């Protein structure tokens, strides 16, 4: 390519890649991409821009609808991940491809023995262990080989995954959002390591939507937008503003609104108060280990933390979806500890769950039917004459209003909720929940997976709710979101609240440290 100025021939070239999913989604609309040896290539884009799809095609997980892949100028076709592995291309998926109940060693065996002839062969545990140890010492990594993966911290799991990639001799390593589950310290370690890898001649492709990371670690960056390459630049000449503009296109970039909060929130009694809460996870281990929280009217209390530190169990315990082992939850003077969700909703708490497709919507039911979920006992939606029979005309009218007010793009009321895009699904959930008229809102990762426009819309609504006097508990693993919205910020680590900071005293560095388990001084 001319613009890469005097570099070698690309190692891998993807040309005119088009991908249409079976459900008709047009994920890639003709993408050209070059990958060189020894470089760290950033693949930047919003959710749904097509980054992961493009790399799944390169790693053999998906077949392109159209388009060609060349390695060293020769055309290749990948039918399966094994074809890509044989070519030294390995993708580390966002949620990893390790068998959780296997040890790291057994996971390595999984890539060591392949093909029909190994089927009834005994496991070569000793050979694999030798090879793994040699690799680890060359790389300067530390990964315990005999502990089941599920018992390892996330950062170590990722190292195990990278070890697996190098074990099979990968020289093209694709990392999909590798930092999303890591603490800031673990991310730094990862960056140091992939820079070393690239120096040794491997190509590393780094998929992310975090501009800061692209600038920190990559050599070159390709920005995708809506299935097309929006731009490409050498990282040295890139600025965050430029990349951000490429990423979101002509649309307005959300500005951080830092409204000075003059409300005297700490006056009066808390509207939601949690005391000494202990909650077990699905395996019976305590994951919330004595949490105290007070939520006041007219504030947004953000709970920051790396995912898996007890946030989701905390939210489930407050909303009645998980039983509380010890402690109490008081909502507006009413004890709601271990009460049913419907009891809790009746007393003025609404929940915008993180997993909206599973917990908030019935995807295969119609949109207007979804509007009724949780409101089915409300007499306003019942028939005038026959009690307890739902009057669907009223429901449809309400649904139509909500769609208009929250500008939900839907074909018709009769369409299934599944037909809605992620952003519109979340708008539908929020519209419905707000129509319940609550005083406390528990919002868990409310903008995850949403595009920029819906994200800013959701955030505006949360702010409006606060301004109207509701208490909002915002649980999010997106630190930027927490910093943008919250009046106070609590950091959760290993099931405990490490500290609560007001917005004025909150510094990114301190919060980052606390998220990694380091108490800020």
């Amino acid at each position, binding site marked *: 390519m001319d613009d890469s100025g005097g570099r070698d021939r690309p190692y891998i070239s993807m040309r005119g890649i088009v991908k249409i999913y079976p459900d008709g989604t047009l994920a890639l609309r003709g993408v050209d991409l070059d990958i060189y040896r020894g470089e760290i290539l950033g693949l930047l884009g919003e959710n749904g821009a097509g980054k992961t799809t493009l790399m*799944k095609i390169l790693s053999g*997980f*998906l077949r392109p609808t159209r388009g060609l892949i060349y390695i060293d100028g020769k055309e290749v076709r990948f039918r*399966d*991940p*094994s074809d890509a*592995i*044989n070519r030294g291309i390995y*993708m580390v*998926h966002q949620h*990893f*491809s*390790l*068998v*959780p*109940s*296997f040890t790291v060693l*057994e*996971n390595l*065996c*999984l*890539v060591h*023995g*392949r093909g029909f002839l*190994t*089927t*009834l*062969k*005994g*496991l070569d545990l000793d050979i694999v262990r030798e090879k793994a140890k040699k690799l680890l010492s060359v790389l300067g990594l530390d990964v315990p080989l005999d502990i089941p993966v599920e018992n390892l911290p996330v950062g170590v799991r990722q190292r195990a995954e990278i070890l*697996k990639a190098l074990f099979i001799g990968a020289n093209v390593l694709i990392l999909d959002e590798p930092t999303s589950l890591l603490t800031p310290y673990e991310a730094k370690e990862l960056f140091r390591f992939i820079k070393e890898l690239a120096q040794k001649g491997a190509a590393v492709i780094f998929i992310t939507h975090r501009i800061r990371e692209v600038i920190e670690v990559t050599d070159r960056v390709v920005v995708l937008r809506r299935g097309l390459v929006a731009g490409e630049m050498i990282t040295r000449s890139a600025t965050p503003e430029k990349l951000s503009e490429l990423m979101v296109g002509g649309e307005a970039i959300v500005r951080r609104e830092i409204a000075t909060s003059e409300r005297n929130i700490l006056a009066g009694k808390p509207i939601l108060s949690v005391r000494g809460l202990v909650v077990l996870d699905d395996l019976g281990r305590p994951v919330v280990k004595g949490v105290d929280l007070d939520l006041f009217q007219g504030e947004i209390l953000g709970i920051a933390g790396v995912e898996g530190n007890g946030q989701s169990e905390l939210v489930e315990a407050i909303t009645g979806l998980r039983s509380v082992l010890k402690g109490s939850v008081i909502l507006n003077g009413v004890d709601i500890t271990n009460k049913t969700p419907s009891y809790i909703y009746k007393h003025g708490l609404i929940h915008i769950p993180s997993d909206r497709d599973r917990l908030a919507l019935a995807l295969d039911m119609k949109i207007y039917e979804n509007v009724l979920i949780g409101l089915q006992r409300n007499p306003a939606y019942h028939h005038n004459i026959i009690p307890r029979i739902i009057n669907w005309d009223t429901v449809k009218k309400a649904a139509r209003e909500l769609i208009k007010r929250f500008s939900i793009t839907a074909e018709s009321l009769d369409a299934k909720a599944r037909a809605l895009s992620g952003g519109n699904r979340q708008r539908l959930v929020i519209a419905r929940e707000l129509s319940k008229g609550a005083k406390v809102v528990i919002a868990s990762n409310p903008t995850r997976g949403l595009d920029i426009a819906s994200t800013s819309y959701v955030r505006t609504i949360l702010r409006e709710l606060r301004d109207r006097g509701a208490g909002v508990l915002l649980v999010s693993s997106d630190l930027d979101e927490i910093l943008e919205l919250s009046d106070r910020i609590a950091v959760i680590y290993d099931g405990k609240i490490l500290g609560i900071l007001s917005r004025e005293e909150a510094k990114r560095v301190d919060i980052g440290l606390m998220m990694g388990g380091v108490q800020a001084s």
Partner: protein
Amino acid sequence: MMIRGIVRISIYVAILSAILILLQELLGTDPKALIQTTLLAMTPLALAAAGEALNQRAGMVNIGIEGIFAISAIAGVYMAEVLGNGYLGLLFGGLVGALIGFIMAVVSIYGKADQIIMGMGLNIAAMGITPFLLRAIWGFPGLHLPPKEVLIQRLDIYGFQISIVTIAAIVIAIALHIILHKTYLGLWIKAAGEAPEALDAAGHNVNMIRMITPTIGGFLAGLGGAFMPLDFFGSITKEFTAGRGFIALACVISSNLEPMGSLGFALIFGLADALAPVIAITPGVKESVPYQFILALPYIVTLAVVAIAVKGRKLPRALGIPYSRE
């Protein structure tokens, strides 16, 4: 490891001997006859359960073992009579089972059909097919006695009668144990059940693994089914399976999906099966307890054992969930 296994097995043998001596004292049963019947009753359960344990490890479920038992029993007897050879009948029964297992696998993998519903369907269909075939093939709706020549001859070891199929069942359970825990195939099977996406990412064919195990499981269930009329009972009746397919499933779940463990539980249920008729005719019991209640003993034992053993069992994460790359 090896020594621990031997110690464990010795303990089991000691417990079993104690039970047998106790029974001899209490009921006057002949221990040898009881063991012989127990092993016969154990065999179909052990075969089917060991195969299904392997199958469920790969994330597949076949609750249609009862149906496979019935269909392959008839197929096996029919083929044995046509070819005049009981062993070929056993083999044919196994092949019919394998075919059923394979078809169910294809339908569930490529058609994304619910395996529980398919298994239920198979069981219900078999309930109708059995009497129909009995009538269609042999003209008798209730009972058919295959000629003596095609029945499997029992081995006689110093007066102790044991079926060669029983020995095969024990060998197969051990072989499946080794395959599952010592070979690459076993690693792939476990990965297919725990994290199919990881198996896929490592460059293996998840669907291939998930078609192999139901076929093996189906073959073993079919073998067990054909064993019952051709060896165990020496006859075929309308509802001869009598829920044994479900007891095999109980073995699987109780053993935590271990082929060897399944064999052990099959032995316990086999003992209950063999004991029930003996207890029912014991003087003292005969007069006070209705014999129907005693004949329900194997099922009560199953219920009790499963209720105790199932606690803390960890099933594969992807059990019954079809795999696709989104």
